[in-house]
């Protein structure tokens, strides 16, 4: 490991702006870090200088790096071979990335799926549908491992055996929200977990919008399924625009506050309107895969239920009233259909076709 890389790793422990860090790296030249720190350094505040000067200890730093690598975390700096090319030319590229998992995914055809943390039933359904289909078509799904659209995208990608990258706004040993710990473990085994913060870094308010630039930067396009006008997704969209990435949005009901952002983006022409995963697949000139509709044998009642659910999600009471099937029988039909993956159960006794 070169002295420059070591310096980047050392600096990542202090919350110093990327510009200043780049300045220090330039200043380093062929010297070692000790010499650099004892020389005159401009542009830094007194506090910052004191912090980086007092904390430096060559032995400790070497040990720190060894510990990180031994814990299975890979360190990518802008000087590493594996550092993603898509990020290298961004104006505010992260100087360092900590990673767990398959680094090969960074060179894949990445597509970001982002959105609200509180998805509506509609948002959950379409995100699931898009994530599964896109992952099966070979896209690497990039998202932020948060609640809502993020975790739905990751989970469903993994379910169909697809590849996914999670860029998180905290250290790799500090998954936030903690509920997603097991999902993070899954991703580190079957995908890639990425963070620009050192492993023990605790999440802060500003780190989440910051990591959105990595999500946007890694991806060829950003798909927004459901988000409010003030959502953090706005940041991802802004970065994507700045970096010249494609933006896709799924339209939604105009009365649904969670569909405001996609509808707005479509209206002002910033996003491509997509209504099916195939739209994105075709946009990139790929062949949409024809999923063979397995002929599933359904009995009369099951067909009737599927017909009733055709256009809209429906409540149990509605289905019971229209189909006239007794409660207990209907309940078991619905569960069977769900187990066979034909319909989905949503909160408040609501069902929808997938």
């Amino acid at each position, binding site marked *: 490991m070169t002295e420059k890389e070591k310096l980047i790793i050392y600096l990542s422990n202090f919350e110093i702006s990327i510009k200043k860090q780049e300045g220090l790296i330039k200043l380093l030249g062929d010297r070692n870090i000790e010499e650099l720190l004892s020389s005159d350094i401009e542009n830094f505040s007194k506090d910052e200088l004191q912090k980086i000067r007092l904390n430096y200890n060559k032995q400790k730093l070497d040990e720190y790096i060894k510990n990180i690598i031994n814990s299975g975390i890979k360190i990518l700096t802008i000087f590493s071979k594996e550092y993603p090319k898509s990020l290298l030319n961004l104006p505010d590229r992260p100087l360092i990335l900590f990673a767990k998992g398959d680094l090969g995914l960074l060179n894949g055809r990445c597509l970001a799926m982002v959105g609200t943390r509180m998805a509506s039933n509609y948002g959950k359904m379409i995100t699931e549908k898009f994530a599964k289909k896109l992952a099966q078509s070979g896209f690497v799904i990039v998202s932020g491992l948060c609640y809502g659209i993020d975790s739905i995208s990751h989970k469903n990608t993994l379910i169909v055996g697809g590849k996914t990258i999670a860029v998180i706004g905290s250290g790799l040993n500090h998954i936030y*929200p903690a509920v997603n710990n097991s999902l993070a473990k899954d991703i580190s085994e079957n995908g890639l977990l990425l963070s620009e913060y050192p492993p023990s870094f605790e999440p802060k308010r500003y780190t989440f919008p910051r990591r959105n630039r990595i999500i946007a930067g890694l991806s060829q396009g950003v798909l927004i399924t459901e988000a409010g006008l003030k959502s953090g997704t706005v940041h991802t969209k802004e970065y994507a625009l700045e970096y010249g990435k494609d933006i896709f949005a799924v339209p939604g009901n105009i009365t649904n506050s969670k569909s405001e952002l996609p509808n707005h983006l479509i209206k002002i022409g910033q996003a491509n309107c997509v209504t099916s995963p195939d739209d994105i697949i075709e946009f990139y000139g790929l062949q949409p895969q024809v999923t063979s509709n397995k002929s599933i044998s359904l009995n009369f009642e099951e067909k009737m239920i599927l017909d009733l659910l055709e256009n809209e999600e429906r409540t149990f*009471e509605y289905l019971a009233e229209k189909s006239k099937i007794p409660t207990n029988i209907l309940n078991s039909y619905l569960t069977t259909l769900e187990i066979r993956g034909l319909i989905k159960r949503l*909160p408040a006794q609501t069902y929808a076709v997938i």
Partner: protein
Amino acid sequence: MLSKVLSFGLNGLEGFQVQIETDIIGGLPHFDIVGLGDKSVIEARERVKSAIRNSGFEFPVKHYTINLAPADLKKEGPLFDLGIAVGILAATEQIVEKSFEDYIFLGELSLDGTIKKVRGVLPILISARTLGFKKIIIPKDNSEEAKFISGIDIYPFSSLKELVIFLNKENSFPINPIKTKSFEEIEKINSNKLDFENVKGQKVAKRALEIAAAGGHNVLMIGPPGSGKSMLAKCFSGILPDLTFEEALEVTKIHSVAGELDLRQGIITERPIRTPHHTASTISLTGGGTHCKPGEISLAHNGVLYLDEFPEYSRQLIETLRQPLEDGYITVARANQTVTYPASFTLIASMNPCPCGYYGSKERECKCTPAQIHKYLSKISGPILDRIDIHIEVDNVSYKELNNNQKEECSSEIKQRVDKARKMQLERFKSSKNYCNAKMTVPQTKKFCKLSPDCEKLMELAFSNLKLSARAHDRILKVARTIADLDGLEDILPSHIAEAISYRSLDRKYLEV
């Protein structure tokens, strides 16, 4: 002079024999009661003194010592008043001692000599009968609850004076013991219970409660405010099977000890439903305290314990339910004794899906953050969820449904099906202590819930596709067993399994954000 009178004290739900010894000697005026009595026993001095005088008897100025034997057992409550008074009257030779030596005396005295009702008469009667006593004197106000005990002569009295006349046989008309009734003779008091007939819609919830009643399963209802969770729970006790005499006696015993018996109502004929508030203290729920009394969960014995807003109860309180839910009784350890109360109830709990109550609702948008919802749902710990077989969602009923004139099924029709299913279970478990599917042990589940290959396949698919948690497995089997019983079938069909799976809302991931 010395006299000895029999009485009974109460320890938990068991009566124990107490001998009241009265010794009167000359000397300075003094009145002392010894034998580990609590405050209300010590205060008997003043009540007894006044009651004797105001009934027209003499209370000579002398040195009185009263001993309640055995002296090492704690005695509580005013039920020894009557015995002490009779003892003093005997020691002062105002009653012939021979006349009462085989009687037991229970009752609190009022200053004017009236005998007032006391709590715990029923359990004492049962204990006294078991110990072979033949005659007992009780307050008249307690006579209703005593009517179902045969094999012991019970004499109700309303005043000390009457009692003395009776004991001295001064009255030429003999007073007879109360006539006992058999359980079948009692008029079942219909306490205006809510009927499922009045609940519109809520088909899934009704069906789930029917299954719960049939198999003795605990239920958790999840739904927004105003969706009718409480109403459903209140209707629930109406579809449970009738109490048998033994069960009714047990319930009445507990209510008698807690002092919760209605005067008019001798024996409790309906399954109780208790609804403690979520601010209730742990002791009020489990029982115990200074004056050891059964708590809410014991008062719900053989009935229903309904806990509304389940996550609002303190963690500690919810966790104390674990032992009773498992064993059917609660053991309350106090500093100087341990009491066990029966507490075998069906738990009906209800909760909102999130702190604001509207997560997933179509009527209003939920205002909670994902973290809040997650925290709220995870307030119910795994071990408690393990003991609740059925989780259902209850949603608001639309105006259209509220106003349709379609006739809903009434409770008595549902109850018939429940009774039939229970009968099957009694037959199945006749060689074991168990009486319903919910209480099946692991080997019993293995034996009675055998799955056909079709069912096995469905279960396997369900676990992999719906991401059920492992703890759901046995719960689903038990509920499926009950559903099969409701259909009158010995074999569990795939449709039974499928229906049972639909009642595992909290194990399923669709509620997650």
